């Protein structure tokens, strides 16, 4: 049965809401320079700690930087990390989960124990230690988060591949002499497309959240703007009146991003799992 997943998502309220939020965030991140006259690191002429005004919608911080500008540029960091981790981590999931299922045997057993191990290790501590030791930057954070997140997806992909690899067209491809990469990327991945997308959304959501958390804890590149860092500064300056202008819009933006990702993910999962689908959709298909 062919299910048009895009239609399923846009057909549900959750999906529409999620996609709208996500689209909004992406637009803000992409067109950030058009929405502010300042740059995030620019020390403006306004005095530090000023409250919201016409020139500075959310006021300025201790270094006379415009908070609105930092907020919208911060979306870039969040989304970069989110998408970066989604792509890298799901690639690892597909590669390791898929090959484990295709090869089976010792190879499979080895990787599944690795998966167990990584899930068992408290990742956040490892990341803090490693990132601190290696001097944190965005790329390093993406790599570390991906290394932490791929095992969950790998389990899902492995299970699905086990059933898909028994399909006739897969063994037909074997009889043309196809190797694992052809089988995996031409025959298995296309059929796993929606599952992989759902996995990517999940990963992105966790990555955005964890990046914010890590930078809140100070594990972050000092030269970039990040929502977590902004909240950390807000916490530091709670004795000043302006702290709420630093904290609340940032928290709100972070929440909206996470909600957008979650809603899209929910909608896709509903489409993927027939048990979660309500009858209205089935009728719609007929």
């Amino acid at each position, binding site marked *: 049965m062919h299910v048009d997943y895009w239609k399923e998502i846009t057909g549900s309220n959750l999906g529409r809401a999620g996609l709208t939020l996500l689209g909004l965030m992406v637009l803000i991140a992409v067109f950030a320079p058009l929405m502010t006259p300042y740059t995030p690191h620019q020390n403006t002429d306004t005095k530090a700690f000023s409250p919201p005004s016409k020139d500075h919608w959310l006021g300025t911080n201790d270094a006379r930087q415009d908070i609105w500008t930092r907020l919208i540029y911060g979306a870039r960091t969040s989304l970069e990390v989110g998408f970066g981790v989604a792509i890298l981590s799901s690639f690892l999931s597909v590669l390791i989960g898929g090959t484990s299922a295709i090869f089976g045997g010792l190879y499979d057993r080895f990787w599944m124990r690795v998966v167990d191990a990584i899930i068992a290790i408290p990742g956040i501590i490892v990341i803090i230690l490693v990132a601190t030791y290696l001097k944190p930057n965005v790329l390093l954070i993406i790599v570390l988060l991906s290394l932490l997140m791929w095992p969950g997806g790998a389990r899902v992909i492995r299970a699905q591949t086990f059933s898909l690899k028994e*399909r006739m*067209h897969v063994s*037909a491809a074997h*009889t*043309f*002499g196809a190797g694992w990469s*052809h089988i995996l990327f031409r025959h298995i991945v296309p059929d796993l497309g929606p599952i992989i997308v759902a996995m990517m959304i999940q990963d992105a959501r966790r990555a955005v959240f964890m990046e914010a958390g890590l930078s809140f804890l100070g594990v972050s590149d000092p030269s970039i703007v990040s929502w977590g860092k902004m909240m950390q500064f807000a916490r530091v300056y709670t004795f000043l009146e302006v702290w709420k202008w630093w904290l609340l819009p940032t928290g709100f933006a972070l929440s909206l991003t996470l909600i957008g990702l979650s809603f899209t993910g929910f909608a896709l999962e509903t489409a993927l799992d027939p048990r979660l689908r309500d009858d209205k959709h089935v009728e719609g298909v007929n």
Partner: protein
Amino acid sequence: MLEVKDLKVSYNGLQILNGIDMCLQRGDSLAIIGESGAGKTTFGLSIMGLVEGRCSGQVFLNGRDLLSLSEEDLRSARGKEISMVFQNVEDALDPIYSVFDQIEEAVRIHQKIDSGQIYEKVNLLLRSVGLSEDKGRAYPHQLSGGEKQRSLIAMALANNPEVLILDEPTASLDAVTKAEVIKLLRENASDKIALVITHDISTAAKLTDMMAVLYAGRVVEMGPTRDLLENPRHPYTRGLIRSSPNMTTTKDLQGIPGRMAHGILGCPFHERCTQHVSICSEKVPPLFDLGDCRSIACHRGGIVPLLEVMDLTKSFGSFKAVGEVDFTLYEGETIALVGESGSGKTTLGKILMGLLQPERGEIRLEEQVITGRRDMKFYRRVQMIYQNPKESISHRMTVLEAVKEPLEVQGKGRLEVQISEVKRVLKEVELPQDDEFLKKYPHQLSGGEAQRVAIARALVLNPKLLIADEPTSALDASVQAKILKLLLNLQENRGLSILFITHDIALARKVSDRMMVMLKGQIVEEGPTDVVTNTPVHDYTRKLLNVAPDLSVENSSHRGSCNTLDIISQGKYPLRANGIFR
């Protein structure tokens, strides 16, 4: 004794006979078979000294070289020592003389006897060929084809010749007359050297003990008739047998691709041969002895064994799926693997294909051991067709992508080359090659079309061996028939060997040369399809044959019910009283 040495004949520089050697004793009978244009008639005529082209070599009859005799001497030998029954009965008799007169003429030329004796002699001859005296008085146009043939035979036998050459003795006769003429010839030729020239293999089989297959002026295979027909070794001989209708083999008729050409370099048959290699187009293969009176002219030693399987065993846990299987599949041959579901047929197919690993045993492809290690090259030689084409083709692939996939996997050629390959192979499986069709997805195709696409996919790498696992069981009967026809044609044109896995013995009977019956992983019976289906040895084979579909009506009740319905409709009986409505 008739001895032919290096006989060569050419017409206008075109070599028709290319060095024929043979030696025949009194009582021998030899059939010369081959397609028209092979030089069969020329061979007969050159022994008679009647050939018009340039003739070289020697034909010794009792020590005399007939080719070096003067015309005078030849004339005295012709009709007396050697006689010939000519091909075309309509033209061989003179329409203005009665049959009696014509036979009398044959006797009078060579024997000096008076009229009374001649009268007796001719009547005796007429009787011996089964013609009455009245028929003897008749003119050729008053006689039937069979009677004309009989009178020609009487003429040939008139002087009790030592060598009797029969050129298509039964060509234009109906089956009953043919049988009578054959019987007649057998009776009369037993003490002579009989040379039967024919394209009709069944006539040759009935008339002769030895058989020589002539192709483009060369003998390509020779041997005892029975052995040669049951077990042909030259691809051309097999092609001839496959293309001749008979009641023995059950496989559908197949032709031989291409046309015969004279004067080509190398083996004369190589252009039409599906197993030719480079040496075939360079050197003429000599006729060499195979033992058991068989000889063959082929660089590859006859039809090559393509796949040899020895002692193949595979178990799943304690369940033995395939046990100690041995067989050999020859080039261009179809073996049907028959058995019920669960008998291990598909497992065997998968092992051969490398999808499963055997526990024990050896598989050889073209004399190379391939068990355990199969490289990309292997899959260019062996391909598989599955039961359900819509499953074996990814539902995400268009026709173009699906057929192109094997080429991509094998890294063959650039995109344009691949597309033209795809179109070529689609043409071969009789599918459209336009862009609209190439962009279709499997679910947009009919069952037959999808299976053709699957076959095209398998053929695009030009394999020699096709493992067809129930290729037609998902199709309805008429589509199935077309697909089978296609497979047979592909076999004919490419020399494909096919391992045809099926549960349907009736189907297997029509498509296979040999049949293997599988039960619980073991091959319980194996042999030529006609032998297995006509005289099954194993109980299981008999059981399969008993339950095989046939069109005969089981009992008379079906036929009866039709009549009763008629009666009911006429209102003669109340419905209640009739058995079928109870």
